[in-house]
């Protein structure tokens, strides 16, 4: 029974939260519209209604979806590779101090070097088509690596001792002990890295200008001083970013729930 009560209270709370969120959103949209009227120059600021109209016009074109698809696919590949290698490297680094010490400055450099420098450097090495793959990878890798490594190192020594006494095998230790202890760190890393990869990947496209990408459209908007286009694409980028985050969280939730509820 108490669980039922809890649930209904939580849902009521959620409804309240959404109400507040909508109000806040409405407030800022209104401020945006007021600012547009005050400035009254389409080249500097476009109002939300104009942006919506432009976005609606964009989404019915095939080119819009092709560009979003191409950008998304490339960034997703870079991101996925970063998650895989980040977890793998963290696992190795947690065991071998040499690897940890060797990787530390490398990850530090990846975190500190500005995206723009990386983009120009990468353009010298690979074709602009692969640019966003590499940039998404470079942005996500140090975040995933550092967080997962921290999670592994924070794994309860008491639980590991328990496993040692009972002779729990390595695979089971990873699957049951490390996985649960590292999961919160992994989630935080993935959420942060995904948003960063997406933004940096598109920034890279603006510089590298691969065909049929979001970055290319942003660049065109700049060249033609097409501010409504710039705003509409930006809104599209934000929407994709929020959707990706939400999808990723849901997927991880599902995995966690299934994993935890096993009899």
């Amino acid at each position: 029974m108490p669980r039922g009560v809890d649930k209904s209270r939580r849902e009521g709370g959620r409804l309240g939260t959404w109400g507040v969120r909508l109000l806040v959103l409405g407030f800022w949209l209104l401020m945006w519209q007021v600012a547009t009227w005050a400035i009254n120059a389409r080249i500097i600021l476009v109002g939300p209604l104009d942006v919506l109209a432009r976005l609606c016009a964009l989404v019915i074109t095939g080119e819009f979806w092709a560009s979003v698809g191409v950008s998304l696919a490339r960034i997703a590949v870079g991101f996925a590779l970063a998650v895989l290698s980040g977890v793998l490297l963290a696992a190795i680094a947690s065991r071998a101090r040499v690897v940890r010490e060797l990787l530390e400055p490398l990850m530090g450099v990846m975190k500190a070097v500005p995206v723009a420098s990386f983009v120009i450097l990468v353009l010298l090495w690979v074709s602009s088509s692969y640019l966003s793959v590499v940039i998404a990878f470079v942005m996500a890798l140090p975040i995933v690596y550092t967080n997962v490594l921290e999670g592994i190192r924070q794994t309860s020594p008491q639980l590991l001792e328990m496993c040692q006494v009972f002779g729990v095998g390595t695979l089971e230790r990873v699957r049951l002990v490390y996985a649960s202890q590292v999961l919160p760190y992994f989630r935080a890393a993935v959420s942060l890295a995904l948003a960063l990869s997406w933004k940096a990947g598109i920034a890279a496209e603006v510089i590298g200008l691969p065909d049929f990408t979001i970055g290319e459209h942003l660049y065109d908007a700049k060249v033609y001083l097409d501010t409504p286009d710039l705003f509409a694409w930006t809104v599209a980028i934000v929407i994709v970013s929020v959707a990706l985050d939400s999808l990723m969280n849901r997927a991880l939730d599902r995995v966690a729930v299934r994993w935890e509820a096993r009899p």
Partner: protein
Amino acid sequence: MSAVELQGVEKSYGSLHVLRGASAAFEEGRVHVVMGPSGAGKTTLLRLVAGLEAPDAGEVVVPEGARLGMVFQEDRLLDNLTATANIRLPHGRLRGEELEAFLARERTALASVGLPVDNRPVSELSGGQRRRVAILRCVLSEASVLFFDEPLKGMDVATVARVMDYLVPLLAERTVLWVTHDPKEKELLPSSVLWDVRDGAVSRL
């Protein structure tokens, strides 16, 4: 024949000498109740025979390949897993019929010691309930040598009776080292051998 043996074991933590040349032979297939004042080294003794600590000098002998099980002073459970998943941990990954058979055994065990049989993670259980899960994980493992570090601490009389009713038959033929403060626990463990840890030595009473 002894299953677990200490031969002139010395163990100190910094300037604190816990065991000073302690020797003891714990007979195989029997329950050994280990008592002694607080801080005398009972937990250290268990950690040594469990292989979690190395002696400074002397030798700790545990039969080669013997499987071990332990109830620690803390529960040491995987918080976000169910009671059954926790109890199954020492068995590795069971599948199909093997899993079903073991689950049935686990559910009987949970009910016998008065624990809820559901799919809640153990983090939602009370301290006393978690303790019982830790005890079941140990006795339902395939270990032939079991270590208990004050397993009944803080448990009420009725729960102790339920737990012991289920537990005692499962200790038969296994070598058990049972550390406790409470002299009454000796009565709960029929035909057990009593040991005393005191002043750095382990002696049979």
